[in-house]
């Protein structure tokens, strides 16, 4: 009664396979998973939200570094978020990204494509736990600020910096962008073999018992050849984040790519508003699932991020009391 398939398995088992209508839908399942996890996580949620924004800063820095291989960081994410000719961050350009587009970028990232050859010149290392601001300053090499009104931080650590150069493989980069729906010709030929050098400075993180976290790091520095058209790269990145070609072109021309940091904000994770902290530009982010708030701003040559369960107004007030 029972025969075997080519794998030597009783062929009746093939009847159990999902038909096309019932096939897996990973993107929808991922969205459902996030909702379920948030529902079940309770107090862990705030920690995850905070961790995400900590990672956001880290990923910004890392992606800017283009240390894709060395950090084993998904290449598309790097290309999608920060393949920009940053020099010094002075302002932010938040870009809303749909969950569908994020899922697409994630799927592309999983393909393992690589935007070029990486030569690492400075080694990142493990985060170092320190006991005081003085120790943090010694390890990080810059003046560490804190928020006295929160009391002494419960934890303090220093994330080491690093540096490297990416030699762009234009063919690969175009392939990656093409998969993300970008017209590959937007990326100029001048990018082929271009060397993009980046320096990432150490970051200092302070945490308090109520979940408030304060991160500071000097702005990363990026250097690229004069012939590289940063606006064209920016235009491709904006398209990869889901903007229409016309919209991406318009915005890329309006952005000063020498000092603007593009921050992709997934719409299913957070909403954002532009804010001013101490006279400097910044962003306030609010978890759409109520897990907390974050503000990101720059002051001088330093980037700051403050996250926690406090309201945006309270976080802004805390940021104003930074010393």
């Amino acid at each position, binding site marked *: *009664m*029972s025969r*075997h*398939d080519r*794998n*030597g*398995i*009783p062929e*009746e*088992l*093939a*009847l*159990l*396979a*999902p*038909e096309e*209508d*019932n096939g*897996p839908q*990973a993107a929808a*399942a*991922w969205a*459902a*998973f996030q909702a*379920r*996890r948030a529902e*079940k996580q309770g107090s862990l949620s705030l*920690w*995850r939200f905070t*961790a*995400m924004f*900590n*990672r956001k800063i880290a*990923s910004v820095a890392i992606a800017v570094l283009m240390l*894709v*291989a060395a950090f*084993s960081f*998904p*290449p598309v*994410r790097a290309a999608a978020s920060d393949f920009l000719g940053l020099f010094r961050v002075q302002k932010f350009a938040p870009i809303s990204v749909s969950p569908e587009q994020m*899922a697409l970028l*994630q*799927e592309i*990232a*999983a*393909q*393992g*494509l*690589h935007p070029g050859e990486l030569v690492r010149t400075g080694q990142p290392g493990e985060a170092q736990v320190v006991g005081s601001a003085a120790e943090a300053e010694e390890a990080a090499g810059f003046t560490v600020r804190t928020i006295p009104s929160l009391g002494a931080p419960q934890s303090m650590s220093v994330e080491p910096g690093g540096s490297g150069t990416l030699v762009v493989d234009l063919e690969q980069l175009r392939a990656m962008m093409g998969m993300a729906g970008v017209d590959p010709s937007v990326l100029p030929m001048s990018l082929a073999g271009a060397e993009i050098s980046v320096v990432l400075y150490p970051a200092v993180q302070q945490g308090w018992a109520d979940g408030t976290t304060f991160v500071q790091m000097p702005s990363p520095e990026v250097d690229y050849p004069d012939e590289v058209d940063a606006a064209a790269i920016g235009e491709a990145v904006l398209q990869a984040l889901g903007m229409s070609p016309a919209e991406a072109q318009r915005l890329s021309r309006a952005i000063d790519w020498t000092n603007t940091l593009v921050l992709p904000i997934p719409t299913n994770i957070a909403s954002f508003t532009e804010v001013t902290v101490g006279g400097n530009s910044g962003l306030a982010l609010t978890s759409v699932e109520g897990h907390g708030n974050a503000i990101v701003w720059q002051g001088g040559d330093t980037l700051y991020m403050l996250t926690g369960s406090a309201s945006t107004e309270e976080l802004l007030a805390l940021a104003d009391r930074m010393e």
Partner: protein
Amino acid sequence: MLTMSDSLLLARVQEGDEYSFSLLFHRHYDRVYGLLYRLVGTRAEAEDLAQDVFLKLYRQRFAAGREHNVSAWLYRVATNAGYNALRSRQRRWRRDTALLPDATDAAMTPAEAAAQAETRAAVRAALAQLPRRDVEMLLLRQMGVSYEELASTCDVAPGSVGTMLRRAGEAFREAFREAYEREERGR
């Protein structure tokens, strides 16, 4: 080409990296869902169980600094979840056969669709009679999982996989024959 290993992604997840978890999820979801669907036969239940499996993965604390076979872990947890659901269903089976609503081919006649549904029911009834590991091996192999991966997933020597599969196939045939005859008698 460079693809992050599951172990590296896991290490990043332990540090709170949401993105790495999403990569793991997208990398393994289709197979986990496929395995569960084969066991329970409905999209809703397979999706629900798959969510539980990944929630367990998310909460699992893996030892740092070691290689971890994530797919093996996921298949094991998914098989356990689906197998338990299947056996639980089999206990209710007689009183509610409508619990097996696999999709049917629109091109089939009602009689053909009914016959196929009966065969599927008998296949699942047979699986419910087998040891858990036999079920896992048979379904994963049917899904195209290699002998090497099967050995790792089921924690057996690679050289034993062929023999174990053959025995599992024989046990299935016997259980299927009995289940099919029960179906026939029940009509």
